[in-house]
């Protein structure tokens, strides 16, 4: 990843419940500071003069408590610890609750090239959002070749070599009312170690598809805003490949195949492609089957259980009731 600066943090395109509502209220040169780790710090200890293990390379969040203490120091004109605190290289400080720091404090901060930001969100809620967003920014990333669609609420990554019919299958799925996240180059990132999120690697080309014979089409304009989505968790991988007569394909569906991407195990199905096989319907069915599994119902396992139960009862019947017994 390239350098992630304080300005990039202000520029993040976040919506509604993710919004950070940040504004820069001082220390503008500090906007170029690099944020190196996805963590934050409450500077209570540092303000009171204790600097051992001071996590100065983190963003410092000032809430009402810190603010009250700064005001007390300002009133009593004891600004030495604040001078000391900003002798460390701090990328940015953020005031929550729309608090405004005293002028003397701002001057000290600005002299150390540290950006001063402000938000109207309460401290705990702001910390949660900031950690979540920084987690996304610093998440391990990977760009892969495939199509990401949402089918019945399940994020499906369709993969396979070029020309196998990924885009055509996705187009048919969109036509059936499912959603396209991105075609062709998908950027995946891992959130909190176990969730794999996917989105188009480029906002300009997102929601466009290339269909052989038609060229590039704009799915949003053609099928409407209901046919697209910006990002989605990858919950199932569908691998399309040319039908190979010598290969044994899964006939029961009882095996749990997974693919590891960025350390996350994603359930995977391999679907052989052959003229006459309706791939979109198979993908829809795979999505519904995956939903059932999430609800705890495993088609193949339940089926086998029923067979076993039936065989057992049949055997029992044979033991107790012989054919020659006529009632």
């Amino acid at each position, binding site marked *: 990843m390239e350098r992630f600066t304080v300005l990039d943090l202000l520029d993040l395109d976040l919506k509604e419940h993710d919004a950070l509502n940040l504004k820069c209220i001082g220390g503008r040169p500090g906007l170029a500071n690099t944020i190196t780790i996805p963590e934050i710090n409450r500077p209570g200890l540092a303000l009171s003069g204790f600097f051992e293990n001071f996590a100065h390379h983190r963003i410092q969040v000032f809430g009402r408590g810190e603010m009250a203490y700064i005001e007390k120091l300002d009133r009593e004109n004891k600004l030495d610890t604040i001078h000391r605190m900003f002798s460390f290289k701090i990328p940015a400080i953020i005031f929550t609750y729309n608090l405004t720091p005293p002028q003397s404090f701002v001057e000290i901060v600005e002299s150390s090239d540290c950006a001063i930001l402000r938000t109207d969100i309460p401290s705990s809620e702001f910390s949660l959002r900031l950690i979540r967003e920084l987690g996304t920014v610093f998440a391990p990333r990977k*760009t892969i*070749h495939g199509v990401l669609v949402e089918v019945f609420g399940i994020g499906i990554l369709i993969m396979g070599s*070029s020309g196998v019919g990924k885009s055509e299958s996705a187009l048919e799925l969109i036509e059936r009312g499912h959603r396209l996240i991105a075609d*062709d180059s998908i950027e995946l990132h891992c959130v909190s170690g176990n969730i794999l999120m996917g989105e188009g690697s480029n906002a300009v*080309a997102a929601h466009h*598809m290339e269909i052989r014979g038609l060229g*590039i089409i704009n799915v949003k304009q053609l099928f409407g805003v209901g046919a697209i989505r910006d990002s989605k968790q990858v919950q199932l991988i569908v691998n399309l490949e040319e039908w190979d007569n010598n290969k044994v394909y899964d006939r029961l569906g009882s095996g749990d195949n997974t693919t590891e991407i960025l350390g996350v195990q994603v359930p995977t199905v391999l679907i052989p492609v052959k003229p006459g096989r309706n791939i979109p319907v198979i993908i829809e069915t795979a999505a519904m089957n995956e939903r059932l599994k999430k609800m705890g119902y495993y088609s193949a396992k339940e089926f086998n259980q029923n067979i076993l139960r039936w065989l057992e009862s049949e055997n029992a019947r044979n033991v107790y009731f012989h054919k020659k017994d006529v009632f």
Partner: protein
Amino acid sequence: MTTKEVIIKNRAGIHARPAALLVQIANSFDSEIFLEKENNRINGKSIMGIITLGASYNTKLTVIAEGSDEQEAVDAIVRLFENRFEED
């Protein structure tokens, strides 16, 4: 595996037309072909991939090919870059 670095010399960068040209050439080879820009690797046979790479003027790219005709593939693609996609 054959790799070669190229620098984009046409002013407009790789927009739709050069990308189509590139894909057309890449698809005429059996080898797997990739383009890499700052650790961002995409399939050289996919037009959307190449466009989303966002390769502008003076960007450095690495052409990677793997397969039976990798040398010919890399040569053909590098030639395309050197000819500035018949632009300018």
